[in-house]
């Protein structure tokens, strides 16, 4: 798991992960690259991350992938990420195509639902919580 201050260098990450696994005999490599879209008048998105729980979440996924003979990778930006740059890169390596396609889908969707990351629109230099696009994590409301 890799966390960066500001936007990700998607090409560097893609190539480095490919090189790291070049002798591992995986047949399928599926990265997912998240890019900041220009919408409304935002100039950037900004992210807060709570690393200890993100790391546990990622470790659990690493174990789940290992049970299928696969591995997962993840990189995310902290702080401001300008539009048209990358905030998120994740990936699956697997011996087999079918496992890889199913894992990348489940991994990315669970990431959206349960990774402890908070998103803000940056408009005129101001940071506004993206409440309408955020979802309560599994088990939310326990203390209500």
């Amino acid at each position: 798991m890799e966390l960066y201050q500001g936007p990700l260098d998607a090409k560097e990450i893609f190539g480095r992960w490919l090189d790291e696994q070049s002798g591992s005999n995986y047949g399928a490599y599926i990265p997912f690259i998240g890019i900041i879209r220009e919408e409304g008048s935002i100039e950037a998105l900004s992210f807060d991350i709570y690393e200890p729980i993100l790391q546990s979440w990622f470790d659990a996924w690493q174990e789940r992938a290992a049970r299928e003979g696969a591995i997962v990778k993840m990189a995310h930006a902290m702080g401001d990420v300008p539009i048209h740059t990358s905030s998120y890169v994740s990936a699956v390596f697997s011996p087999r195509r079918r496992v890889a396609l199913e894992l990348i889908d489940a991994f990315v969707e669970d990431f959206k639902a349960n990774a402890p990351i908070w998103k803000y629109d940056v408009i005129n230099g101001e940071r506004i919580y993206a409440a309408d696009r955020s979802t309560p994590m599994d088990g939310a409301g326990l203390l209500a």
Partner: protein
Amino acid sequence: MIRVEFLGPIGKGPVEVKANTLAELSERLKEDKALADWLPKCAVALNDAMVSDLQTHLKTGDRVTILPPVCGG
């Protein structure tokens, strides 16, 4: 005393609270009107492990984290 931390957009500094269970902690936190809108949407971690049982016991030095709705990616 239990240390309670509020993450991301909640915008509230950590507080020290007396509570023997998460249920007791819930009662204490609900006294803060500023948290009323947040608590129904927040997940909870105890010492950085997600928890789902209100009867979970707490002991001095425990750290409870309040996690509001997320949107990574």
